């Protein structure tokens, strides 16, 4: 593949993310990978539901006392918005507007960073209250499920940061278009998982 081939918005293909065989492979492979990730999170969810509120005798934590919806609401807002901004970025990628794509992805990364910061605050708050990774089956399954999601967010942030800086000087081409596109798929996936966490962990935890 020729990295130096120059495109204009007119010659840029309609589906740049799968315009070459290598790109098509990455595109399909990444969708399949997300299928595997779905199973991974499904297993974590099932375990969480089985171990919810389970602890040693005299264990003093329940989902109702622990979770605080306002904080989780702000986190949800940040992450859902970051998914929207990544959609804008992909829109500009398809119309070959590199600068605007970088800008919207930068905003996506900042929103993601905000989410992660609040999650770190939330976790440290729980630990301060005495709800630690090791004090019950409930806490282990909570931190593992939500923490795995948070870890995915962190990986996504490193990924998009590397992409933004690596390509800043050379613009869009058919080699990195796929990389940008698979990142956006990944980011949406993280968002979908969060919607489930918000519902299954927090809403169901507070309401009943």
């Amino acid at each position, binding site marked *: 593949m020729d990295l130096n081939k120059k495109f204009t918005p007119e010659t840029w293909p309609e589906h740049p993310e799968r315009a070459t065989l290598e790109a098509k492979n990455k595109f399909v492979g990444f969708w399949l990978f997300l299928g*595997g990730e779905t199973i991974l999170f499904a*297993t974590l969810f099932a375990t969480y539901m089985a171990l919810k509120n389970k602890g040693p005798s005299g264990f003093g934590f329940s989902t109702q006392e622990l979770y605080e919806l306002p904080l989780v609401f702000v986190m949800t807002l940040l992450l859902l918005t970051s998914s929207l901004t990544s959609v804008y970025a992909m829109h500009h990628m398809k119309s070959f507007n590199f600068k605007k794509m970088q800008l919207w992805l930068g905003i996506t990364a900042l929103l993601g960073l905000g989410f992660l910061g609040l999650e770190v605050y939330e976790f440290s708050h729980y630990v301060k209250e005495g709800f630690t990774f090791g004090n019950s089956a409930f806490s*282990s399954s909570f931190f593992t499920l939500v923490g795995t999601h948070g870890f995915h967010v962190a990986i996504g942030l490193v990924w998009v940061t590397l992409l933004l800086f690596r390509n800043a000087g050379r613009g869009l081409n058919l080699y990195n278009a796929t990389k940008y596109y698979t990142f956006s798929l990944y980011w949406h996936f993280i968002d979908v998982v969060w919607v489930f966490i918000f519902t299954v962990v927090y809403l169901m935890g507070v309401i009943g």
Partner: protein
Amino acid sequence: MSSVAQKRSFGAAFWDWMTTVDHKKIGILYLIGGGFFFVLGGIEAMLIRIQLLQPNNDFVSAGLYNDLITMHGTTMIFLAAMPILFGFMNYIMPLQIGARDVAFPFINSLGFWMFFFGGLFLNISWFLGQVPDAGWTSYASLSIASPGHGIDFYAIGLQIAGGGTLMAGINFLVTIINMRAPGMTYMRMPLFTWTTFVASAMILFAFPPLTVGLFFLTFDRMFGANFFDHTMGGNTIIWEHIFWIFGHPEVYILILPAFGIFSEIFPIFSRKRLFGYPAMVFATVLIGFLGFMVWAHHMFTVGLGPTANAIFAVATMAIAVPTGVKIFNWLLTIWGGSIRVTTPMLYALGFIPSFVMGGVTGVMQGAAPLDYQLHDSYFIVAHFHYVIVGGVVLAILGGLHLYWPKMFGTMLNEALGKITFIFFFVGFHCTFLIQHWLGFWGMPRRVWTYMDGQGWNTANVISSVGALLMAIGVIVLVINIIMTVAKNERIGNDPWGDGRTLEWAIPSPPPFYNFTATPLVRGLDTVWIEKSEGNMTGLTPAEPITDIHMPNGSIIPFLMTFGLFVAGFGAMFHQETSWGLPVLIFGLAWTFVAMAARSLKDDLGFHVTKEQIQRDVDNASKGGRI
């Protein structure tokens, strides 16, 4: 590489294999790695059978016996059977669909190294004297309580190897979806490719639960979590569910490619197309689907209740239907064929009755009430060895003889091959048939010795003698391989004379770019069609010879995996030593730096020019080698 034979230094050749991303070389690496672990698992099996040779034997201690059965099972499933099948998939499947390469050559290499280092990690436990000892299923009630670092080796070693397996699965799936030659529709794909496809899809959905389960185990044992500790609210049944949601599909991940290999052997040596090809494809997919619906039949005696047991019993027995379809289609492929009883065909013929016996005992256990009687007895041991050895291992040995000439350009000795078969086959039935009765007579599995006077003595001697016969068979195979390599008599494209699929139309071994020009596929068994229409090359090109794009080799997969390997030791020792945590962080950082290096440096591969290919073709037509 080129048409000119070059003498290369050992160092250069070694570096070449360390950095290779060629699917054929990675296939051979898988075969070597898997073969090594197969021998290791076999030695463990022999030690088990020596211990059980007579009552009240003290050849090994009870603790060592637990180590042996755990490592035998783990090694054979994760480090021998699956990698060897991956070897065949890697080598043969891209050739069968007319592809130049797999979809992700880099990830393919990463997958191999992760399998290899995961296996190494597991077996280093022997040198530390702290070996996994809770059975290959590592039930949490046992594994949480196991002292020392044995189970830690299990959890981390399998985690690394399992990651490699997932990558291999995705790679095979995308290769089959995207890289088929023109005309190679799904319903023209050879059965081995189809079974690779379905097994890979099963890997994609079965391995993430294992990943999660192993993380739970790691967290519980090394990082203070409480998933399985009931005093802290945990629940060990969760491990059983997660393990078998992975573990049951796993046995189909093993057996489906084995079915695929037999589906290649029968048509070649019966000189008939595979009977009922569409039904075979449908049965493969159906088995793949049902494989996920039956995990709780491993848990009938857990106490899930009669409703759950009944549902899983029915689902389990349903699998017998597509499997039966396959058996009858193989029989009808042989029926009326012009049969040549070569070594691969012997394995295929031996497979049918052996596997049917294993399948029938499986249906017996599918009946939940009977399973209460048979549970944890030697009947179970007999059943799964009939399926895994009578199915998978016979396929591996048959496939090895069938594809050896394609892989190495030289033919394994047929007489020695038949001797191997006879020893192995007789030894296999001798070992495991009697174990069905041992189970009926009440001998429990996983117990290191038994008392005299229970009527089990003679049967155990028979079983141990059978194991010895199998070992002799494997030794003959090793001799055969050494002799073949030493003699190195070169053979042509189609050494069996009746090859039907694309891999038999190209040189043995194939050039690194596989096909000089992408072939045009004109039907099922396309090479057979070409040959029967008089085209003795067996190939119709779909395009003129053009420049071929190939990937560069890379050492990064090796480096990435090495980081994980180091991090594993850090995780294991972080609680009792001061260096544990720094090593864990260093190892993970090493891996991340390697990943970043991979993503920051563009690696666009290189082109083989059409002049070079044309020279290779001309040279081959003059009798030279590509």
